[in-house]
């Protein structure tokens, strides 16, 4: 028997596999296919204060071994999420839930987190300071240490739940941002969000995405995500949720060896709706091949 349990800032997950925000909706579509309780956790679609319809179509483009999305945080707003989605989620998933929070101002981040903290279902707040598809005066908070620290402090002040800051890869030095979040009171980090990319339609000679740019994710970004997890593991002493291109149990192990305590799976869910279940099911065999009986031992294993 391989022990798949992992811990994230005091919360125990039955295994390290977590569907990534924005690729799993509120779980309904997947719950029709399989019992979500085989998952360690799940991170629901990014929640903002007001409802958002998102960006105009097309919002999706294909890339080699990956995809671009410019969904733009479409969601019904935090109040509707709490009133309608959380009760629904309670019926399909009883494990610890990750509430993914977006925002356009420090006040909005704090307010959303305050509201979601009041929901017993929320196990972890995952604060997205890295969405490349929404614009608040140019850059987003995740692109410099000052902004990242400011959001961390604002959220920290209103919640006693574990706060995981979700970092952007579109920076020169992600370790610097991670340190700023750690110093400002974050309990953990999630990385990476998507890389900024674009495609052009040869026929129309215009960007494929109506938003012009979108976020690159999928296997293509795996080596970049892995490197950033490594760098952040070296820089701060906080649990890391590794994310970016993970599509197999072996990828989960590689992410954990780089320093992740748990792993989010994004684009892979879109290609194969059973991806997370399959990955979780394959983890014991993958661990056995590595000679590991407790998966949590893998975390940071390549640094030694």
């Amino acid at each position, binding site marked *: 028997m391989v022990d798949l349990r992992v811990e994230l800032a005091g919360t125990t997950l039955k295994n390290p596999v977590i569907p990534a925000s924005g690729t799993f909706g509120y779980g309904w579509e997947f719950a029709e296919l399989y019992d979500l309780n085989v998952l360690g956790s799940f991170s629901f*679609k990014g929640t903002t204060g007001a409802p958002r319809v998102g960006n105009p179509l097309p919002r999706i483009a294909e890339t080699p071994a990956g995809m671009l999305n410019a969904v733009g945080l479409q969601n019904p707003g935090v109040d509707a999420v709490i009133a309608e989605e959380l009760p629904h989620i309670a019926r399909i998933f009883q494990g610890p839930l990750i509430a993914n929070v977006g925002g356009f101002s420090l006040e909005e981040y704090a307010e959303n987190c305050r509201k979601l903290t009041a929901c017993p279902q929320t196990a972890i707040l995952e604060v997205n300071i890295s969405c490349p598809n929404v614009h608040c005066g140019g850059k987003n908070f995740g692109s410099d240490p000052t902004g990242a620290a400011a959001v961390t402090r604002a959220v920290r002040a209103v919640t006693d739940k574990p706060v995981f800051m979700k970092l952007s890869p579109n920076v020169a030095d992600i370790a610097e941002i991670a340190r700023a979040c750690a110093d400002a009171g974050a309990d953990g980090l999630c990385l990476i969000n998507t890389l900024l990319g674009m495609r052009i339609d040869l026929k129309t000679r215009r960007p494929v995405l109506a938003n012009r740019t979108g976020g690159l994710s999928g296997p293509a970004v795996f080596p970049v995500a892995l490197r950033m997890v490594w760098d952040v593991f070296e820089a701060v002493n906080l649990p890391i949720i590794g994310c970016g291109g993970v599509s197999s149990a072996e990828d989960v192990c590689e992410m954990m060896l780089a320093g992740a305590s748990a792993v989010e799976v994004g684009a892979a869910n879109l290609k194969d709706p059973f991806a997370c279940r399959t990955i979780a099911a394959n983890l014991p065999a993958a661990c056995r091949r590595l000679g590991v009986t407790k998966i949590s031992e893998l975390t940071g294993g390549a640094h030694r």
Partner: protein
Amino acid sequence: MEKTILTLEHIRRLNVDTYELVLSGDTSAMERPGQFVNLELPELFLRRPVSVANWTEDGLLLLVRAVGVGTARLTAAEPGTRFDTLVGLGNGFDPEERGREPVLIGGGIGLAPLYALARRMTGLGLTPMVALGFRTGADAFYLEEFAALGCSLFLATEDGSLGTKGFVTDCVRAHIPQADYAFACGPTPMLRSVAGLTQLAGGQFSLEARMGCGFGACMGCTIETAGGPKRVCRDGPVFRKEELKW
């Protein structure tokens, strides 16, 4: 929705870039005409959505136009090729709601789901009118198949080389004035014109969108409708006329 393996049994070229594909496999997830499948293709990250043009218990029919890398690969596949496929996606057409004189209006490759619908309707003892538009006569296909169902066929081509010269809506206006309900699928400009046909009391429109997942998870395909934001892949692809904000 089910995830299953479909095996290509036959492939037949219908015109310069359009092919008929017969695939075998589990179709138990199919409920309605107008639903689609989402096919995985080698070396491509995203699946490709294709309407089901007909299905039986153990197989289904696709009509595919080669327009890019994925459809080119799909239509170049050899019998025996296996495709990992999500089957039974989307809401599909509701043939129960159909007005008094329904007409199926298709533009080009958009006729694919209408063929499934026509078969379903003939199964219900109806012989719907079918209006099809193409750019030119050489692009036309599946006319005999529709005719074989007993449907009255009305054709339009932009250059007049086959049927009425002009758009399919011109043809409907001119030749089927009695039609009061449309089941339509085709390019967006065509759908807009169909929605503008004053003779229609209602209709069901099958839309296209670039998709991330095809089953409602990513919000990649959301449009604004009268009833709020809806996902083309899951809440659609078929929308009622009054839902569309055109």
